[in-house]
């Protein structure tokens, strides 16, 4: 398999997992929680790295995902107890945890092959080079892609099984509680999934651009359909398309790959914002003229 193919596949897997969960974040009006989690997991990643000594091990994933869930818990706790706006609490918690992560990163810099640059911007270029050595067919596929693929499957299974739970607690949490469905439980299930996806994605695209993958495909899909299942599928489509087009844009410009993928996402959003059949700017203007 070619080098380009693995890079595009990495982008597509990151984009797909993020796009699926992003739809629920956007509909719950909590897109910035994705931003918070993607930054706040850094201390978790560093601690787990120090303990396990590797970047893609299971304890690291679990450790970082737990920190992500803890972040959302902390945000809610502070906004409730200090009677603070939710967005102020988000800004407070995630910058603090991220700063702690950066300090730890520089303190233990000599003990690990992880640096601030990788955390912020990702190292998608190195992903095809990291191959497992088991002597079986597993070695054909780069290690990181296995992990991204497994997490993608986990996301799909969770959404498939929990679809109704996510749907009802997103649309009308009070009603969900009134029929005996715990809105809090489903909130934390979603937050755990977002943390997991963020942690496995940050290494490829960086902590900043993960947010774009969480929010932009979902926001574009939101403009293109009135049906939740279709919204999920379109969001994945937008994510995959952006990683293909973004890769070639980066090649053409000889520039950053994750940066180009994210810029492509922005362009795709702009297109749906302008041209979406029902909710786009131009079709609505035309309709108004006709009417």
């Amino acid at each position, binding site marked *: 398999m070619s080098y380009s193919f693995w890079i595009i596949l990495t982008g597509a897997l990151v984009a797909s997992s993020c796009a699926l969960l992003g739809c629920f974040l956007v509909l719950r009006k909590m897109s910035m929680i994705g931003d918070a989690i993607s930054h706040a997991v850094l201390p978790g990643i560093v601690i787990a790295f120090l303990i396990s000594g590797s970047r893609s091990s299971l304890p690291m994933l679990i450790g970082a995902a737990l920190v992500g869930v803890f972040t959302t818990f902390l945000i809610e706790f502070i906004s409730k107890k200090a009677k603070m706006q939710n967005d102020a609490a988000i800004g407070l918690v995630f910058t603090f945890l991220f700063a702690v992560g950066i300090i730890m990163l520089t303190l233990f810099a000599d003990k690990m092959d992880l640096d601030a640059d990788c955390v912020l911007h990702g190292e998608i270029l190195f992903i095809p080079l990291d191959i497992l050595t088991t002597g079986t067919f597993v070695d054909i596929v780069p290690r990181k892609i296995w992990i991204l693929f497994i997490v993608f499957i986990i996301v799909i299974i969770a959404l498939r099984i929990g679809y109704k739970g996510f749907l009802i607690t997103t649309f009308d949490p009070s009603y*969900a509680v009134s029929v005996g*469905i715990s809105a809090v439980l489903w909130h934390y299930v979603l937050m755990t999934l977002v943390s997991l996806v963020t942690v496995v994605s940050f290494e490829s695209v960086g902590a900043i651009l993960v947010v774009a993958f969480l929010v932009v495909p979902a926001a574009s899909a939101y403009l293109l*359909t*009135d049906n939740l299942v*279709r919204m999920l599928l379109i969001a994945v489509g937008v994510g995959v398309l952006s990683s293909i087009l973004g890769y070639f844009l980066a090649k053409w410009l000889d520039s950053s790959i994750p940066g180009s993928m994210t810029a492509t996402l922005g362009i795709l959003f702009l297109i749906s914002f302008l041209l979406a059949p029902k909710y786009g700017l131009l079709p609505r203007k035309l309709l108004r003229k006709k009417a």
Partner: protein
Amino acid sequence: MIVQVENPVLEVHDLTVSYDKNPVLWNVDFSIPKGKLVGIIGPNGAGKSTMLKSVMGLVDKQSGYVKVFNKDLDEVREQISYVPQRESVDWDFPASVLDVVLMGRYGRRGLFKRITKEDKAIAMASLEKVNMQDYAKRQIAQLSGGQQQRVFIARSLAQQANLYLMDEPFAGVDASAESSILNLLQEMRAEEKTIMVVHHDLQSAYEYFDWVILLNMRLVASGPKEEVFTPELLQETYGGKLTLLDSLSNFIRQKEFPIKG
């Protein structure tokens, strides 16, 4: 003036609820008989919605308890259905009318079992009861206020409960939707269902309900409307709210010289 009943459908005992140490409900104690259309009346901020929410366990109780059919809520959850305020959800959500009404089946069916043909039939029958069957495939963003309210009521009907708690079902709907919702509530009462409705319009309250709860943080009165609707009790409920005094005296005048029977 609090009339307690034998074998109540709903019993609220010494209920106190506060938000951030500010009491919203204070020592509320009443019981509701079966098969009545019950109105909860009181000024803005009287804790009407909070009372429904605390019955459903949506807000924490400081003290007191609630019994439904003489049992704890969790034992009889299937018997009781809650209709939140229409404004509490985002109607731009990507869902169809049928998707929303089917949520009424989630509690009974459980989240992890498939929606069956029977569930769909019940959802469609519920939509027919509110006369919205032609809108099943319609996206919810395209509905008018009255239609949204009827979809919420259909979702609640799909639960096939015996006690219904509705938060402001008549708010922001036009006159024809109001009368069709009222008809539906009366049909439900004829089937021995009990319906408790938060209502803010004093003028129509006397006409709509059989049993009235007057609330202003404390319980002012609970009983048959003929006994509760006295100038003294209404003044006690709305007292001090100068803007309301006009419509209040209006109402009392109307009651003294009734236009309708």
